């Protein structure tokens, strides 16, 4: 590794695609394009039965009765599961590992707390039979009034979350005395991950061993939950998830539909497949919580911030707790001597919200990055300039140095590539025929979440290298960067490396969430590969049968799959030849990044909960990724339609392990941000507390036609405080700040400030 010699995480990192920092194409690409990649529910198992969920049609109340007679008698029906007939499970601890309440867990419910809750399931010989029989179930309810959303009069102010409170200085007093004051409320609606592959699984029991084929962002965490539910040892549960059709945060936890399928399989003694319908994916698990924020900024006439007062509210469910940290960007983006942020959560009759790409930072940035734009207009300063005037030279909250913060470089590079200096400041001052043109800027950030990982690296008799890890690749490129890491570390061509992921039998890994996996796993593979390489060289030097034995060298060089001496004065043999000569069929090394004194309990906790994650402000530094988005919109002055016509984003994710894949993830985040800004909104029927646009024709995500060319530029430098190889987070960063950049551009185009997402045409005509 020559990490320290590397400055930019771009192609200059290395001429070769095959090493870390190179632009190797996705190694799993051909399997996906040709259809060879087998996804979870595509497994063909003997005796497979099909389960279909039946969901509540009320948002609040009780199931009075379920008449199963007709469904039981329908062709092919094997089982009708209701709260009365499904086996009772044990409660499972949450993702922090917090011990569960001491009461049995039933994934089918009688007490209804949201519309679309699982109340029954039908298992049949075929999928079609199960669907037909499910329609014959007659569920009757005693309905009670529901709290449908944040604006419901019954919702109240919610529950204060003290852990979210951040205070320094005297923010209220400083605001009151500030010469310039702005105050505005910003709202984001319920949004959904909408992965291409819907949630589903196949569960199979063999004795007290359970195998689950299920798309998963966290095999070991989900295996723990299944093990706890069914009261079997963790080792008895095997999760298999080699390919995942998108997760965006929604596939990290074992969910109630999984408990239903695994229960059905146990009761039936047959493997059971259960796949959610697309409408069920809108209520079977949580999307991003709806949020409200009030941001007040007090500043001097030069736009220098003196105070920020922030109040946030997010939805949670009646019986679950989700906190979307709304003050997370607010407290660190700009230097301010006085600050106050508080947050409440409000219980409504919905499924408990969940993680969706940059939970917390995403809506937080919509508030603060819109508000600073409003301040810029208030004081008459360019929106880019005001950000530089308030640049935080250190973490204003933790009062620590940034590990690296290339945000100034991001602003400068992005502005230059975008042509920001040609912007005319007044709203409605740029147009092309009927199209009003607006240019907006906003910044984004995401903390560097760190954890530990482990991996096995094997050097095989044919000279190839095999890597195994229970981490996953949901499209972000884990397979590929681990190939690069192993290839470079051992010294073999990338074609000679096979990476196996997505099986909980492999060495363990924590969640692929919070943009941490690449940093965790490149570190683990680097360690394991280094250890394997040491063994290989050790054998070559010391084994009497080795052709290098007589050379009496201190070390040897492995490159391109061949071993030689540094001075070139000895033999030059392939890895395969060496292993043959010393009589070994493989070398194997396990490597991990856990502290050396870790106990088995520590290890279990690290891989199956998020309790061991290292704080991003641990030690002397505050670690974050950063970005700046420059976005052009065209707004039709008659129709109010907004189209994004140009995006230039400069991003600091530290060192990039593979720029091609990082750029792809950044662009994906930006595209998702365009959807969030302009299209996405779960619309609730307020009479029924039900999401009515629960399908991909009515819940709009962007199409290709909505997306212009997007230019992404890496301005990162290796950050060795953040990870072993110098990278920071990639996957979540780029969505943060896109929505406010678009809202700011819309204001510049039209003079209308839209503070409620999405920015649909009726808000502008």
């Amino acid at each position: 590794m020559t990490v320290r010699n590397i400055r930019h995480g771009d192609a200059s990192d290395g001429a070769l695609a095959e090493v870390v920092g190179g632009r190797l194409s996705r190694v799993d690409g051909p399997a996906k394009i040709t259809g060879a990649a087998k996804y979870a529910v595509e497994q063909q198992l003997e005796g497979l039965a099909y389960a279909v969920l039946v969901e509540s049609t009320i948002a609040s109340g009780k199931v009075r009765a379920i008449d199963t007679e007709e469904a039981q008698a329908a062709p092919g029906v094997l089982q009708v599961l209701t709260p009365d007939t499904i086996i009772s499970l044990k409660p499972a601890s949450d993702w922090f590992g917090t011990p569960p309440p001491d009461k049995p867990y039933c994934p089918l419910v009688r007490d209804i707390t949201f519309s679309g809750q699982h109340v029954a399931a039908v298992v049949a010989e075929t999928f079609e039979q199960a669907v037909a029989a499910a329609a014959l179930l007659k569920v009757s309810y005693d309905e009670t009034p529901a709290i449908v959303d944040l604006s419901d009069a019954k919702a109240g102010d919610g529950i204060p979350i003290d852990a979210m409170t951040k205070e320094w200085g005297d923010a209220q007093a400083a605001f009151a005395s500030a010469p310039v004051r702005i105050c505005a409320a910003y709202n984001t609606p319920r949004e959904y991950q909408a992965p291409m592959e819907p949630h589903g699984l196949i569960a199979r029991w063999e004795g007290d061993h359970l195998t689950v084929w299920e798309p998963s962002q966290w095999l070991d965490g989900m295996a723990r939950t299944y093990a706890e539910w069914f009261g079997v040892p963790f080792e008895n549960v095997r999760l298999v998830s080699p390919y995942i059709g998108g997760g965006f945060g929604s596939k990290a936890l074992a969910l109630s539909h999984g408990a239903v399928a695994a229960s059905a399989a146990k009761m039936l003694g047959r493997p059971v497949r259960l796949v959610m319908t697309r409408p069920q994916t809108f209520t079977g698990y949580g999307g991003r919580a709806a949020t409200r924020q009030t941001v007040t900024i007090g500043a001097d006439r030069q736009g220098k911030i003196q105070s920020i007062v922030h109040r946030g509210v997010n939805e949670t469910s009646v019986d679950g707790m989700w906190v979307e940290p709304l003050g997370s960007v607010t407290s660190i983006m700009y230097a301010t001597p006085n600050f106050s942020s508080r947050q409440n959560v409000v219980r409504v009759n919905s499924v408990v919200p969940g993680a969706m790409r940059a939970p917390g930072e995403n809506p937080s940035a919509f508030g603060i990055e819109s508000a600073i734009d409003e301040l810029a207009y208030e004081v008459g300063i360019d929106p880019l300039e005001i950000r530089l005037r308030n640049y935080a030279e250190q973490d204003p909250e933790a009062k620590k140095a940034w590990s690296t913060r290339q945000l100034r470089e991001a602003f400068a590079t992005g502005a230059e590539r975008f042509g920001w200096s040609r912007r005319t400041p007044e709203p409605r001052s740029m147009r092309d025929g009927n199209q009003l043109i607006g240019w907006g800027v906003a910044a984004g950030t995401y903390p560097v979440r760190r954890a530990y990982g482990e991996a096995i690296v094997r050097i095989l008799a044919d000279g190839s290298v095999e890597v195994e890890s229970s981490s996953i690749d949901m499209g972000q490129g884990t397979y590929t960067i681990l190939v690069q890491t192993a290839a470079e570390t051992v010294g073999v061509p990338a074609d000679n490396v096979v990476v196996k992921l997505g099986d909980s039998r492999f060495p363990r890994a924590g969640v692929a969430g919070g943009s941490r996996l690449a940093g965790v796993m490149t570190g683990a593979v680097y360690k394991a590969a280094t250890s394997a390489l040491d063994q290989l060289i050790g054998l070559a030097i010391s084994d009497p049968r080795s052709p290098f034995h007589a050379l009496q060298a201190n070390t040897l060089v492995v490159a391109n799959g061949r071993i030689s001496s540094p001075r070139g004065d000895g033999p030059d043999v392939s890895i395969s030849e060496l292993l043959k000569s010393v009589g070994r069929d493989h070398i194997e090394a396990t490597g991990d990044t856990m502290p050396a004194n870790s106990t088995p309990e520590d290890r279990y906790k690290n891989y199956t909960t998020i309790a061991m994650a290292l704080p991003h402000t641990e030690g002397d530094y505050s670690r974050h990724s950063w970005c700046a988005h420059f976005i052009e919109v065209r707004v039709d002055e008659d129709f109010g339609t907004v189209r994004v016509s140009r995006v230039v984003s400069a991003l600091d994710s530290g060192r990039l392990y593979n720029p091609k894949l990082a750029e792809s993830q950044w662009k994906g985040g930006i595209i998702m941000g365009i959807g969030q800004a302009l299209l996405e909104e779960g619309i609730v029927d307020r009479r029924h507390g039900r999401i009515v646009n629960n399908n991909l024709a009515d819940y709009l995500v962007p199409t290709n036609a909505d997306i212009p060319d997007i230019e992404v530029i890496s301005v990162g430098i290796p950050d060795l405080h953040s990870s072993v190889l110098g990278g920071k987070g990639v996957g979540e960063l780029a969505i943060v700040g896109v929505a406010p950049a678009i809202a700011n551009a819309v204001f510049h185009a039209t003079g209308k400030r839209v503070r409620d997402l999405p920015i649909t045409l009726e808000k502008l005509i």
Partner: protein
Amino acid sequence: MRDFSYLRAGSVDAARQAAALPGAMLFAGGTTLIDLAKCGVAEPETLVDITHLEGLNGIELNERGATIGALAKTSHVADHAGIKSRFPAVSEALWQAASAQIRNMATIGGNLMQRTRCPYFRDPANFPACNKREPGSGCSAVGGVTRGHAVLGTSGACIAMYPGDLAVALVAFDAIVHLGDRQVSVDDFFLLPGTTPDREHAIEPGEMITAIEIPGSAAARRSTYLKIRDRQSYEFAAASAAVGIEFEADGRTIRDLRVALGGVATKPWRARAVEDALKGKVLEPDAVRAASLLAIEGAVDHGANHYKIELAPRVVARAILKMGETA
């Protein structure tokens, strides 16, 4: 989706007879029917497959106009050179409808039978009340989420929007639906909901769409379809307009004008008041904008769909002015 029997019709007559039986439905592209079966709205007992019937997928143009077979794929019609040159609004309406995959499957006849996207209509498990689905059961949409509902042609029984694009262009140019021997104008083929929203088309059991005939005209030749929507592709209209125009020899005075609206009404909506207000007048922006307001005469909103009343006249005006500019 329930079990159903499948019948492959050997001829148009056999298809008609089979489709006349209770619970039978014709199956062509399947892009609407399968979708509705999956959400529990369509529950056919018998599917009568007509996809292989010969002689129903032609596109013929002569001096009188175009005749398009009921089984012609929408993508083929959209890309047909004669349609593009003589009926650009028809081609444009088709290109802007659905997705490439759906256009490659969907047929012209099936497109006319496309049903509403009203979310209450499409979710029988959660919303049992729907007069379109179950006559007399009530309407779940009124008082609910109405952003996509109609503002024109509604009744107390139903406010569901007609979602299609092609028929908007067809109604502008007086197209005729061939039901075997019987012929009905497209305008008459689509029924207002009135008290019978379950009855959407003037087609009787045992009848089958065999072709659509579009009379040629100067206005059709100089026409466009302007579709405004939240998403740039694969999205239903927030409001749309099919407009065709013919000028007098002076190139300024409007001799013939055709205007129809989509995305705002319970059926493809011909706006004759706009046509009449401008025919014989010189095309002039202010006059066009004023006349376009007549397009939404009688419109009634249900809250969230109010924007359509603002939007529709602007779409009409833009489309007329655009056609004026191409002189």
